[in-house]
Protein backbone atom coordinates (compact mmCIF):
# COMPACT_ATOMS: atom_id res chain seq x y z
CA UNK A 1 0.00 0.00 0.00
CA UNK A 2 2.79 2.32 1.02
CA UNK A 3 4.69 1.37 -2.13
CA UNK A 4 1.65 2.08 -4.34
CA UNK A 5 1.23 5.48 -2.75
CA UNK A 6 4.88 6.27 -3.42
CA UNK A 7 4.47 5.14 -7.05
CA UNK A 8 1.42 7.39 -7.52
CA UNK A 9 3.31 10.24 -5.95
CA UNK A 10 6.21 9.76 -8.35
CA UNK A 11 3.89 9.47 -11.36
CA UNK A 12 2.04 12.56 -10.23
CA UNK A 13 5.23 14.51 -9.82
CA UNK A 14 6.66 13.49 -13.17
CA UNK A 15 3.29 14.10 -14.84
CA UNK A 16 3.07 17.58 -13.39
CA UNK A 17 6.57 18.51 -14.45
CA UNK A 18 5.87 17.28 -17.97
CA UNK A 19 2.78 19.47 -18.21
CA UNK A 20 4.32 22.60 -16.73
CA UNK A 21 8.05 22.68 -17.27
CA UNK A 22 9.76 24.35 -14.34
CA UNK A 23 12.80 26.41 -15.30
CA UNK A 24 16.00 25.20 -13.66
CA UNK A 25 16.69 27.04 -10.42
CA UNK A 26 20.42 27.29 -11.07
CA UNK A 27 21.27 29.40 -14.14
CA UNK A 28 23.58 27.75 -16.66
CA UNK A 29 27.29 28.19 -15.89
CA UNK A 30 27.87 29.99 -19.17
CA UNK A 31 25.44 32.79 -18.26
CA UNK A 32 27.37 35.19 -16.06
CA UNK A 33 25.39 37.10 -13.42
CA UNK A 34 25.41 40.75 -14.46
CA UNK A 35 27.58 43.04 -12.38
CA UNK A 36 26.02 46.17 -10.89
CA UNK A 37 26.83 49.36 -12.79
CA UNK A 38 27.63 52.90 -11.71
CA UNK A 39 26.54 55.99 -13.59
CA UNK A 40 28.99 58.87 -13.13
CA UNK A 41 27.57 62.30 -13.83
CA UNK A 42 29.70 65.46 -13.95
CA UNK A 43 27.66 68.63 -14.06
CA UNK A 44 28.49 72.31 -14.38
CA UNK A 45 25.20 74.02 -13.59
CA UNK A 46 24.46 77.67 -14.30
CA UNK A 47 20.67 77.57 -13.87
CA UNK A 48 20.06 75.94 -10.50
CA UNK A 49 16.28 76.51 -10.49
CA UNK A 50 15.90 74.89 -13.89
CA UNK A 51 18.15 72.03 -12.84
CA UNK A 52 16.05 71.43 -9.69
CA UNK A 53 12.95 70.97 -11.83
CA UNK A 54 14.86 68.30 -13.73
CA UNK A 55 16.01 66.43 -10.59
CA UNK A 56 12.45 66.43 -9.21
CA UNK A 57 11.18 64.98 -12.48
CA UNK A 58 13.73 62.18 -12.73
CA UNK A 59 13.70 60.84 -9.16
CA UNK A 60 10.63 58.61 -9.72
CA UNK A 61 12.02 57.44 -13.08
CA UNK A 62 15.37 56.51 -11.52
CA UNK A 63 13.54 54.58 -8.78
CA UNK A 64 11.29 52.78 -11.25
CA UNK A 65 14.31 51.51 -13.22
CA UNK A 66 16.09 50.29 -10.07
CA UNK A 67 18.61 53.08 -9.65
CA UNK A 68 19.78 54.40 -6.28
CA UNK A 69 21.96 57.42 -5.57
CA UNK A 70 25.35 56.80 -4.02
CA UNK A 71 26.83 60.30 -4.23
CA UNK A 72 24.88 63.55 -4.38
CA UNK A 73 25.56 66.94 -2.80
CA UNK A 74 28.06 65.48 -0.32
CA UNK A 75 31.13 67.10 1.15
CA UNK A 76 33.93 67.07 -1.40
CA UNK A 77 37.62 67.69 -1.65
CA UNK A 78 39.55 68.25 -4.87
CA UNK A 79 42.73 66.20 -4.62
CA UNK A 80 44.31 66.74 -8.01
CA UNK A 81 43.66 68.63 -11.24
CA UNK A 82 41.07 71.26 -12.02
CA UNK A 83 37.50 70.37 -11.03
CA UNK A 84 36.32 73.97 -10.96
CA UNK A 85 32.64 74.10 -10.04
CA UNK A 86 31.93 70.61 -11.38
CA UNK A 87 29.41 68.69 -9.30
CA UNK A 88 29.60 64.93 -9.22
CA UNK A 89 26.69 62.54 -8.84
CA UNK A 90 26.95 58.74 -8.81
CA UNK A 91 23.99 56.40 -9.12
CA UNK A 92 24.05 52.63 -8.87
CA UNK A 93 22.12 50.18 -11.07
CA UNK A 94 21.51 46.43 -10.94
CA UNK A 95 23.36 46.02 -14.26
CA UNK A 96 24.65 47.88 -17.31
CA UNK A 97 21.44 46.81 -19.08
CA UNK A 98 19.26 48.28 -16.32
CA UNK A 99 21.12 51.60 -16.55
CA UNK A 100 20.78 51.63 -20.35
CA UNK A 101 17.06 50.82 -20.05
CA UNK A 102 16.68 53.88 -17.83
CA UNK A 103 18.80 56.20 -19.98
CA UNK A 104 17.16 55.31 -23.28
CA UNK A 105 13.60 55.07 -21.92
CA UNK A 106 11.05 57.45 -23.47
CA UNK A 107 10.32 58.78 -19.95
CA UNK A 108 13.94 59.76 -19.30
CA UNK A 109 14.55 61.04 -22.81
CA UNK A 110 11.54 63.30 -22.25
CA UNK A 111 12.74 64.42 -18.80
CA UNK A 112 16.33 65.09 -19.91
CA UNK A 113 15.03 67.95 -22.05
CA UNK A 114 14.37 69.83 -18.77
CA UNK A 115 18.09 70.18 -18.15
CA UNK A 116 19.06 71.11 -21.72
CA UNK A 117 19.86 74.76 -20.95
CA UNK A 118 20.73 74.44 -17.27
CA UNK A 119 24.42 73.53 -17.63
CA UNK A 120 26.92 71.23 -19.28
CA UNK A 121 26.99 67.53 -18.50
CA UNK A 122 29.21 64.52 -18.95
CA UNK A 123 27.83 61.08 -18.20
CA UNK A 124 29.44 57.66 -18.37
CA UNK A 125 28.47 54.15 -17.32
CA UNK A 126 30.95 51.93 -15.50
CA UNK A 127 30.56 48.25 -14.78
CA UNK A 128 31.60 47.45 -11.20
CA UNK A 129 34.59 45.25 -10.43
CA UNK A 130 33.94 41.71 -9.17
Amino acid at each position, binding site marked *: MKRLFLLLLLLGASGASALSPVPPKVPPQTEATPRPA*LMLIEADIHDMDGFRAYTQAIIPIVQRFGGTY*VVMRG*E*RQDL*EGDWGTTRVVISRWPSMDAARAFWFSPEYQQAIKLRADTGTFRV*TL*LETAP
Partner: protein
Amino acid sequence: MPAYMIVEARITDLPRFRAYAEANPPLVARFGGRYLAIRTATEPLEGDWEGAKVVISEWRDMDAARRYWHSPEYAAVKRLREGTGTFRVLLVDGLATETLA
Protein backbone atom coordinates in the same frame (compact mmCIF):
# COMPACT_ATOMS: atom_id res chain seq x y z
CA MET B 1 29.55 57.43 5.84
CA PRO B 2 31.45 55.91 2.91
CA ALA B 3 33.46 58.20 0.67
CA TYR B 4 34.35 57.75 -2.97
CA MET B 5 37.53 58.64 -4.80
CA ILE B 6 37.06 59.35 -8.48
CA VAL B 7 40.09 59.32 -10.73
CA GLU B 8 39.87 60.48 -14.32
CA ALA B 9 43.02 59.69 -16.24
CA ARG B 10 44.23 60.35 -19.73
CA ILE B 11 47.30 58.18 -20.17
CA THR B 12 49.91 59.21 -22.71
CA ASP B 13 52.67 56.76 -21.75
CA LEU B 14 51.05 53.42 -21.02
CA PRO B 15 54.26 51.35 -20.67
CA ARG B 16 55.54 53.68 -17.92
CA PHE B 17 52.09 54.00 -16.32
CA ARG B 18 51.99 50.21 -15.81
CA ALA B 19 54.50 50.43 -12.94
CA TYR B 20 52.07 52.69 -11.08
CA ALA B 21 49.09 50.52 -11.98
CA GLU B 22 50.86 47.55 -10.38
CA ALA B 23 52.17 49.32 -7.29
CA ASN B 24 49.02 51.22 -6.31
CA PRO B 25 46.26 48.59 -5.80
CA PRO B 26 48.03 46.81 -2.89
CA LEU B 27 48.49 50.19 -1.22
CA VAL B 28 44.81 51.07 -1.70
CA ALA B 29 43.89 47.74 -0.10
CA ARG B 30 46.30 48.29 2.81
CA PHE B 31 44.62 51.61 3.61
CA GLY B 32 41.16 50.00 3.47
CA GLY B 33 40.11 51.19 0.02
CA ARG B 34 38.12 48.99 -2.32
CA TYR B 35 37.90 49.40 -6.08
CA LEU B 36 34.33 49.66 -7.35
CA ALA B 37 35.29 50.31 -10.95
CA ILE B 38 38.71 49.64 -12.42
CA ARG B 39 39.48 48.22 -15.85
CA THR B 40 35.83 47.20 -16.27
CA ALA B 41 33.46 47.98 -19.14
CA THR B 42 32.64 51.64 -19.62
CA GLU B 43 30.07 53.25 -21.85
CA PRO B 44 30.03 57.02 -22.39
CA LEU B 45 26.47 58.35 -22.55
CA GLU B 46 26.97 62.10 -22.85
CA GLY B 47 29.83 64.56 -23.38
CA ASP B 48 33.46 63.97 -24.28
CA TRP B 49 35.09 60.98 -22.60
CA GLU B 50 37.53 60.33 -25.44
CA GLY B 51 40.65 58.67 -24.06
CA ALA B 52 39.49 59.03 -20.45
CA LYS B 53 39.86 56.14 -18.02
CA VAL B 54 37.80 56.33 -14.85
CA VAL B 55 38.59 54.55 -11.61
CA ILE B 56 36.29 54.72 -8.58
CA SER B 57 37.30 53.43 -5.16
CA GLU B 58 35.27 53.27 -1.97
CA TRP B 59 36.52 54.19 1.49
CA ARG B 60 35.10 53.91 4.99
CA ASP B 61 34.95 57.70 5.21
CA MET B 62 36.65 60.83 3.91
CA ASP B 63 39.41 60.60 6.51
CA ALA B 64 40.34 57.04 5.55
CA ALA B 65 40.78 58.17 1.94
CA ARG B 66 42.79 61.20 3.03
CA ARG B 67 45.13 59.04 5.13
CA TYR B 68 45.92 57.03 1.99
CA TRP B 69 46.27 60.06 -0.29
CA HIS B 70 48.59 61.96 2.06
CA SER B 71 50.64 58.94 3.18
CA PRO B 72 54.39 58.82 2.48
CA GLU B 73 53.79 55.42 0.85
CA TYR B 74 51.40 56.91 -1.70
CA ALA B 75 53.69 59.87 -2.30
CA ALA B 76 56.35 57.38 -3.38
CA VAL B 77 53.96 55.40 -5.60
CA LYS B 78 52.48 58.55 -7.11
CA ARG B 79 55.88 59.54 -8.44
CA LEU B 80 55.66 56.47 -10.73
CA ARG B 81 52.88 58.09 -12.72
CA GLU B 82 54.54 61.51 -13.15
CA GLY B 83 54.70 62.39 -16.82
CA THR B 84 52.56 59.41 -17.89
CA GLY B 85 49.37 61.40 -18.49
CA THR B 86 46.98 63.91 -16.97
CA PHE B 87 44.99 63.08 -13.87
CA ARG B 88 42.04 64.57 -12.04
CA VAL B 89 41.17 63.18 -8.63
CA LEU B 90 38.14 64.06 -6.51
CA LEU B 91 37.03 62.80 -3.13
CA VAL B 92 33.29 62.91 -2.38
CA ASP B 93 31.18 61.91 0.57
CA GLY B 94 28.53 59.28 -0.13
CA LEU B 95 24.84 59.27 0.77
CA ALA B 96 24.52 55.72 2.02
CA THR B 97 25.28 54.78 5.59
CA GLU B 98 26.56 51.41 4.44
CA THR B 99 29.30 50.63 1.96
CA LEU B 100 28.48 48.96 -1.35
CA ALA B 101 30.77 46.04 -0.57
